[in-house]
């Protein structure tokens, strides 16, 4: 269709994007429209305030962390490529992907999804979820009437369960191991991106 071609042609490096993220051109087109809708002022990139217009995010306890995930270190803007790349994490797994040992891990693999979740906790990017980081997340997710002691016990127990090397922090491997029984592919996939 004419319009779809013209939209798609506006996106630079479309081929690479498709290959990296695994989205179909139709998806990319939709995402582009969404990107444009969010991008008030047609700047060509998104700033944190653009995310602010998504009403539900405000009442999401970890809303700011999610927004933060779009902005890589030190950046203040998100261009379309990064936008799509982040969203690609949540694409449902492809059932019959041939496993080529030398190809890079696809963006929506289980490991990538886990890494995304891990980074939501680990804000200082030191590769570990410290007790404090855990406490912070817990605080946002639990109602206010939960007391500090209860929060701390929960955090302690969480670390205790997951921590295998005794450094009182959860590394990515420990995180991954603690979630091995959970169907991450299902939990961290969005139906919208199917």
């Amino acid at each position, binding site marked *: 269709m004419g319009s779809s071609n013209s939209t798609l042609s506006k996106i630079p490096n479309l081929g690479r994007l498709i290959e990296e993220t695994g989205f179909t051109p139709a998806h990319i087109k*939709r*995402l582009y*429209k*969404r990107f444009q*809708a*969010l991008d008030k002022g047609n700047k060509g990139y998104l*700033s*944190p*305030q653009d*995310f602010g*217009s998504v*009403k*539900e*995010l*405000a*009442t*999401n*306890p*970890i*809303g*700011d*962390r*999610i927004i*933060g995930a779009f902005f890589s270190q*030190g950046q*203040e803007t998100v261009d379309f490529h990064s936008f799509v790349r982040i*969203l690609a994490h*949540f694409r449902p797994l492809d059932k019959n992907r041939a496993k080529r040992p030398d190809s890079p891990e696809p963006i929506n693999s289980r490991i990538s999804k886990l890494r995304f979740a891990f980074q*939501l*906790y680990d*804000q*200082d990017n030191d590769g570990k979820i410290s007790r404090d980081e855990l*406490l912070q997340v817990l605080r*946002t*997710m*639990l*109602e*206010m*009437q*939960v*007391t*500090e002691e209860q929060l701390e*016990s929960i955090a*302690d*127990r*969480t670390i*205790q*369960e*997951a921590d295998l090397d005794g450094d*009182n922090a959860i590394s990515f491997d420990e995180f991954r191991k*603690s*979630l091995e*029984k*959970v169907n*991450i592919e299902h*939990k*961290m*996939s*969005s139906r*919208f991106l199917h």
Partner: protein
Amino acid sequence: NWEQDGFSQGYHAIGYIFLPGDGPQKRFTAPPVNSPAWTQVSPKPQTQPLPVFTINYPRIQVPFEITLWILLASFAKIGFNMYHKITIWIPESCLLISVGLVVGGIMYAVHGMPPAVLTSNVFFLYMLPPIVLDSSYFMPTRPFFENVGTVLWFAVVGTLWNSLGIGVSLYGVCQIEALGLKDINLQENLLFASIISAVDPVAVLAVFEDISINEQLYIVVFGECLFNDAVTVALYNILSFVATMPEVETVDVFLGMARFVVVGLGGLFFGFLFGFAAAFTTRFTAHVREIEPFFVFMFSYLAYLVAELFSLSSIMAIVTCALTMKYYVEENVAQRSCTTIRHVVKMLGTMSETLIFFFLGVATITTDHEWNWGYILFTLLFAFVWRALGVFVLTQIINPFRTIPFNFKDQFGLAYGGLRGAICFALVFLLPQNITCRNLFITATIVVILFTVFIQGISIRPLVECMKVRRTNRKLGTINVEIHKRLMEHTIAGIEDICGQWSHYYWKDKFKKFNDRVLRKILIRDNRAESSIVALYKKLELQNALELLGPAPSDLSAAPSLMDLHVETKPTARTKRNFPASDLRNMHELLSKNMYKIRQRTVEYTKKSALPNDSKVREILIRRHISIRHSFRVGSFPRTVWNLNVSSLDNAEGPGLEDKQSWKMTLHPCSGSRGTDLELEPLSATSSVSQLQRFSSRQERPLQNRYHQPERREHELGQQTSREPIAEGLWGQPQRDSWTAHRYSRSRDEHRPGGGNLPPSAPTGWAQEPLIQKGGGSQNHLNRRPHWRPHNPHGPQSPGQVD
């Protein structure tokens, strides 16, 4: 004769008429009063001395008994809601009917004759509008419009499918000789079927509360309930006309369909008309706040009545009216009017529905039932079967068009949760007398309603639990897993919100443009194009700040934010704690009860019989208050801000610290009275200075502490912001301005590099940057208000301009 005077008018108007078809001849009296005695008591005491004490029951009888009934129903509601567990397992309609049954039994036993029942006028003019207004006013508009196709599909097509299916099947059954029902013709069967197919599935929404997080299902159920009332009533009207016709020709069928469409669209038209009229009127009510709620009710009622005048679908009219006007009216009216409107709408709706269920219970006991087991059982069977089939088939057809298809669990919920409600009962009761087997229909309907409400209503929750159990692994996971899973769910919810729904986007966009450019200008008084989040936040804050602080000291005192500033982070090496099993169980329970649900906002809409409770949403919002403000500002993203602030630490630390101190101090006794809170503030300024000096000497450590637990500060700030209106209340304008201005100026300063203030929400603990040790440049803040920034060229900003 006393019947001729206004007394009988009163009866007619309020509808306290006895048996349908009978005139108001029978008297429903408690103490029997006969005419002569009555006239004797009336103002002509010539042959008697002046009566000192008289009882005049008949005069007040009608309103008195109505009030008693309503009171009784309300007591029943209070009773049920005391035991929260009951309302989870048993839908409220069950309980109300039970009470009605009991009362009916009593009345029957006492009086030996049937008590008062409804008439057509009373029901359609007085009882139905509040119910419909209630449902439509609290319909969440955005999800509704995103799913409007599905909703209408299920409501209209579904109801038609059900009616036709059940009607034709029953007609087939009637042909069976054994049942002796040959005389019920097709039209009557269809009429009856159309009555029964009105489902009220909202009752089961409460069951789905914590089982499914499917927003789509909620909306479809909600909307379906609303619109299929409209469809049913329209069908009912058409078919009752048809049923009285001796013969039906094909022309009539087409006419019927045409009428259906006309009725629907006509209702829609009047709804829009009055909706916009109401919105427009409220634009000018700035000086007559007291009567603002009135407009909402009067206009919606007018819409209803005018549609009735033209025999159009009055339900559609009132629904459309409510939906259109809500958005604009809530922007125009005062906060208090808004609250009043919501409360009254909810109150009237609940009352109406309660009364109808009550009548149902009473009527069950007291009408002359005509039992025909075959017919009744087949009705039940067909009702169930056709509903299930209908849901299944319709879902299959519409799933491809939906972004999120309905899975089996959703379909099961929709099908099994098809309880019949108040409308069914009222409609069947109001069947004209010349319908043969009217009593049979009444009996059958009552049986269906009772069956669905009691059996299906009570059993649906265990069934869904069973299904859920079979699907997910019921084994209690580790605490880790629970927390991480919830985090992931929140993440996905957030991502989905960012992606937005893709269907109808074009129209939504167009409408939004139209809305902003044209409609808002006309219909809203103060048209500021506000970012929706600011509007939302301001509304919530304003609406609830006082409530938050007033009667709920527990909110504050238990808040984890009240941590002593001086508590250093505990050393990372901790001895391993052993967690006994009971502790673990408690933890699991704590987590399952206290973790915020996904899309908290939508969950709040699921309870039909309660006002949407915004408290959790408020909580989340206030806690993220600072973060939200951050998200508005260019280049103000926490990481960047953090960097900025680090470099300007010497400037920033002063007021930041002081604020911290003052907040800490003021928050301390906050469980008590408000007065003490505020008094401490000035004190804190001085104490904070000494703190300041102490801090300036050890700059690094305390700051590190502070930013180690930034979440707490966020909470504190959250508390602080909500206290703003108090400042206003007690200290008057200037203080408020300064507080607000302070907050806004702090945020404004973000723009300027080097002017960076310490946004406590840098919180989400981003990089713990190494703190740059500048020379102890603590400034003398004694001369200024503790909350003013030292260099603030922007000055106080007006609260309105945040963006």
